[in-house]
């Protein structure tokens, strides 16, 4: 086996001019030197201090909020409630049932109820305490089962049964599929709720200019343009009155892919106080805002032939969604769409239920909707492989998609490198020689995953192109990339500069990126569903091609030849086959002489055939390009304490083409690592709706001490639609970790765990339950030695 600690290998698509080179991030210097300004670092001048008053009860009718005493306090400038907003909001246009501050009812403990702006923190705190609140409590529902029970009180009057969305999807003849199977197994899986745990605390700075009636908002968002739209809607402003800027953001992971209540609250406070308000949330408030991955129960039945071929899938998924819609209906649709589309399967029946409960709302989180069903699906494949005496790799290979391929649920697959991913991790991990041979307490497990490169249809279907990039080239001979794409640490600004440099064959030093300021940059839907590399990358590619055409034409005109005669070499160009040459500055000058400052736009939209089928909910899961990944996890298990230690991970990710291998490897490692947190130790917990782990001490994200070497192989399947062949790289590596871990634990100690996280107490309980069962069975069988203590039998 290989001995290097962390080895990062990649398949050999050779680097070109700038694509494929390991490129440090263009904003890396600011970050490592501490010069980067995040929202909480803004602005330089004085601001009022904003604070949010939150509901002390999980469910209740708001009888009265009286701010009289608070407003009389010195230094208090504004107190606002839900009545100060013009409309409710929600990221999905058809499920907007949330107010920035609760109106009429509160539906979870910690829900924003009122907000204050004051001249300093002490005055703001005093104002919070002086607001009188009268809430009549209602019975609260904390589990999906309670909320679905007949006669349960309703969170939302128009949602009978507390069901936000019920999904029914049937593809093919499921009964016939099961009848044709050699093995049918059904199991239940449970995953605890997890939250994003982004390091940067939430903050918004809002500035209202009363003279101009204009609002400027700086916020921690991943979706500045959705925020813009939502500010206009909830504050009742005309869009032209609003400017939204996204400064440096310290991690998103989906926490910020929908406009969040505090952002609108800060803006409303600024307007009410006629000034600038800074609203900074605590870590606990971050967990209350949350919108992470919902607690999920999955019942899954799979039919399989002796060859490993999957004949039928029957799944029922229940998600405990929390108090409001958010992205909920998308999450439950993703769970169905990506449950089976990873493989070629015979038939599918899917039932999904998104349930309202009196807890903080859940929403999108890295790997949106597909992580918990992947845990169930891959775990069941592993179990069935064992029953059929098949290697888990063989089962995956028996169901591989060959592109171009249309999945059962009408998703278009144009490239798929899963076969190469499987080969890579099988070989790198020494699977064939080592699995099952590591001795008791140590084991290997594997699983696969896939994810979208951007949802093929935008959330707000306006008919506009899905991505727009503007390029500006002026007298200074520098190119400015103007983009609305939100760099949240994933490296999108760097990638766009690389794409432009590649097309124009220019050095990166000539290119600047100006991003995410609604007054300057073109609209972009935001950084979610791993859409930016694919969609905005394609728009940048087209913009750069457009600019190159303009420059080539100017050079041709100046040298009095046809554009086709120009041999473009970036820093200079020549008439092909001659020594007549212009350098870049001369070409730029020639072009400016014709038209003045050059501005070129590039746009891109997903082709219609990638936008999914015609059935209800078909758009969710559709994408212009699927990434694929496979991983092997090695663990050691301490059977007396239930502690699991991840020793090593091998992951192969088909990212189409690694535009920036340095960034891609980081993203893949981060995704695997985040999957490890969910699988091992992360879980939000509540007591009567009160979060018990709303801090980083008790919400246990792994530290470096738990972080194993993660060996990354990049597989390049060269997607026909992706920019230079590229696809998603930031999410797809996550999904396979939890099932690979559970499989590895099973290989280590022969125990299959179907609940996440595999925390020590949960695992020890399962180990002891198995011991008790074995003992009982032995006693019943009258086997001698059955009462020998466990410790001595091992």
């Amino acid at each position, binding site marked *: 086996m290989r001995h290097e600690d962390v080895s990062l290998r990649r398949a050999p698509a050779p680097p070109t001019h700038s694509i494929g080179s390991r490129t440090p991030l263009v904003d890396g210097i600011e970050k490592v030197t501490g010069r980067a300004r995040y929202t909480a670092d803004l602005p330089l001048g004085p601001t009022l201090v904003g604070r949010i008053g939150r509901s002390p009860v999980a469910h209740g009718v708001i009888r009265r909020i009286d701010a009289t005493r608070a407003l009389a306090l010195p230094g208090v400038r504004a107190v606002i409630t839900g009545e100060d907003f013009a409309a409710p909001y929600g990221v999905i246009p058809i499920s907007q049932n949330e107010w920035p501050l609760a109106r009429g009812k509160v539906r979870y403990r910690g829900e924003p109820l009122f907000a204050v702006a004051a001249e300093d923190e002490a005055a703001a705190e005093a104002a919070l305490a002086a607001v009188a609140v009268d809430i009549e409590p209602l019975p609260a529902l904390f589990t999906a089962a309670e909320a679905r029970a007949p006669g349960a009180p309703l969170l939302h009057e128009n949602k009978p049964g507390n069901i936000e969305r019920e999904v029914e999807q049937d593809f093919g003849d499921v009964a016939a599929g099961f009848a044709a199977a050699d093995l049918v197994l059904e199991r239940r899986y449970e995953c605890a709720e997890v939250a994003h745990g982004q390091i940067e605390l939430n903050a918004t700075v809002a500035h209202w200019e009363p003279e101009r009636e204009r609002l400027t908002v700086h916020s921690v968002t991943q979706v500045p343009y959705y925020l813009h739209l939502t500010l206009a809607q909830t504050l009742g402003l005309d869009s032209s009155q609003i400017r939204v800027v996204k400064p440096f953001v310290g991690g998103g992971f989906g926490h910020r892919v929908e406009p969040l209540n505090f952002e609108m609250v800060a803006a409303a406070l600024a307007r009410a106080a006629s000034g600038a308000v800074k609203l900074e949330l605590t870590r606990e408030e971050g967990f209350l805002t949350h919108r992470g991955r919902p607690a999920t129960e999955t019942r899954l039945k799979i039919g399989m032939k002796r060859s490993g071929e999957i004949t039928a899938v029957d799944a029922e998924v229940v998600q405990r969604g929390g108090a409001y819609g958010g992205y909920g209906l998308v999450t439950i649709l993703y769970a169905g769409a990506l449950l089976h589309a990873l493989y070629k399967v015979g038939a599918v029946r899917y039932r999904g239920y998104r349930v309202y409960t009196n807890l903080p709302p859940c929403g999108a989180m890295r790997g949106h909707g597909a992580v918990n069903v992947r845990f169930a699906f891959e775990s069941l494949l592993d179990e069935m492989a064992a029953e059929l005496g098949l290697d888990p790799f063989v089962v995956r290979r028996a169901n591989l998609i060959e592109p171009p391929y249309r999945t059962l649920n009408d998703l278009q697959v144009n490239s798929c490198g899963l076969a190469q991913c499987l080969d890579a991790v099988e070989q790198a991990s020494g699977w064939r020689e080592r699995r099952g041979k590591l001795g008791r307490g140590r084991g290997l497990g594997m699983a696969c995953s896939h994810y979208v490169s951007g949802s093929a249809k935008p959330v707000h279907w306006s008919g506009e192109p899905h991505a727009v990039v503007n390029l500006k080239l002026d007298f200074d001979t520098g190119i400015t990339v103007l983009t609305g794409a939100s760099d949240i640490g994933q490296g999108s600004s760097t990638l766009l500069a690389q794409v432009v440099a590649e097309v124009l064959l220019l050095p990166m030093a000539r290119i600047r990126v100006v991003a995410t300021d609604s007054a300057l940059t073109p609209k972009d839907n935001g950084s979610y569903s791993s859409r930016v590399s694919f969609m905005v990358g394609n728009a940048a590619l087209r913009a750069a091609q457009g600019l190159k055409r303009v420059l080539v034409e100017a050079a041709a005109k100046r040298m009095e030849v046809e554009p086709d005669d120009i041999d473009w070499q970036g820093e200079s160009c020549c008439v092909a086959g001659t020594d007549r040459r212009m350098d870049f500055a001369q070409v730029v000058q020639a072009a400016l002489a014709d038209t003045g400052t050059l501005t070129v736009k590039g746009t891109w939209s997903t082709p219609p055939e990638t936008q999914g089928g015609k059935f209800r909910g078909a758009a969710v899961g559709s994408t212009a390009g699927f990434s694929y990944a496979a991983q092997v996890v090695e663990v050691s298990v301490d059977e007396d304490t239930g502690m699991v230690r991840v020793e090593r991970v091998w992951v192969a990710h088909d990212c189409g083409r690694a535009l920036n291998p340095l960034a891609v490897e980081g993203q893949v490692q981060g995704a695997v690592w985040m999957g490890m947190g969910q699988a091992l130790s992360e879980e939000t917990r509540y007591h009567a709706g009160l979060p018990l782990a709303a801090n980083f001490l008790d919400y246990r994200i792994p530290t470096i*001490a738990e972080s194993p070497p993660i060996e990354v192989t990049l597989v390049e399947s060269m997607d026909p639609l992706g920019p230079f062949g590229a696809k998603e790289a930031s999410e797809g590596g996550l999904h396979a970790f939890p099932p690979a871990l559970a499989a590895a634990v099973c290989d280590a100690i022969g125990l299959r765990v179907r609940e996440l996280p595999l925390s020590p*107490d949960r695992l020890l309980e399962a180990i002891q339950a198995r011991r008790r069962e074995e003992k009982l069975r032995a006693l019943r069988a009258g086997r001698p030695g059955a009462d020998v203590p466990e410790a001595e039998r091992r």
Partner: protein
Amino acid sequence: MYLRPATVDEALAALAARPLAVLAGGTDFYPARVGRPVVEDVLDVSRLTELRGIRDEGSHWRIGALTTWSDVARADLPPLFRGLQQAAREVGGRQIQNAGTVAGNLCNASPAADGAPPLMALGAQVELARFGARRTVPLSDFILGNRRTARGADELATAILVPAWARQAGHSARSAFLKLGARRYLVISIAMVAATLEVSPTGKITRCGIAVGACSPVAKRLTALEKRLLGERLTAGIAALAAPAHLAELAPIDDVRAAAQYRREAALELVRRALAALAAEAGAGRDWS
């Protein structure tokens, strides 16, 4: 009022005059006051450098009250202190270890204080000074409950005194510490176990201290187990002598970190492992003090 005296006497005089919140490393002081201003009067003892350091005073070792966890981890100490040094390396993260003091950890009296089990298993005492007077209190009598100690409002903890072990010729002593948390670092312990064993030249256990933390409001000595171990030969078999009944006095709770039942089981397993580890080291002929 914020006082930062340069001598212990000044500090004691200030304490005699008015109630003051004592601040040393601040690693518990500040987290207890997040989001609100410090309103109480503070006695910052960080300038009392005379209280920092570890000294062999013959009949006992003196760990000055300002000695940090990093000081303990780096100090050249006999194997008697291996357990305490192990605990020092597992408290919080490196920044906490550099700032936090061992005495402050005891005075804060958290049920999950990492310092309590190893010092209890060493039979440590806490030295308390008030203006013009000084007394020592056994650690097991010093911590009274969750966040409660025997320190009077006018008293300052000035040192932790650890009795010398293995004073008879040919005897040796060694300690071990094991901590279980849901992750390795930056975690509140689920359970902690410390064990100190002294053995005679013939390999028999002549003195011992076993303590468990995070499984009751105050870390507890397992006196029944200690009695059971006395006179036994220190061999690999010794771990099996620890039985569930020896942990009967523990009162673990269900909380966000773990279930009571898990804590109880984990504590027993840790006790056995600590004993096994000490036996293995004795067997391997590692140096004992």
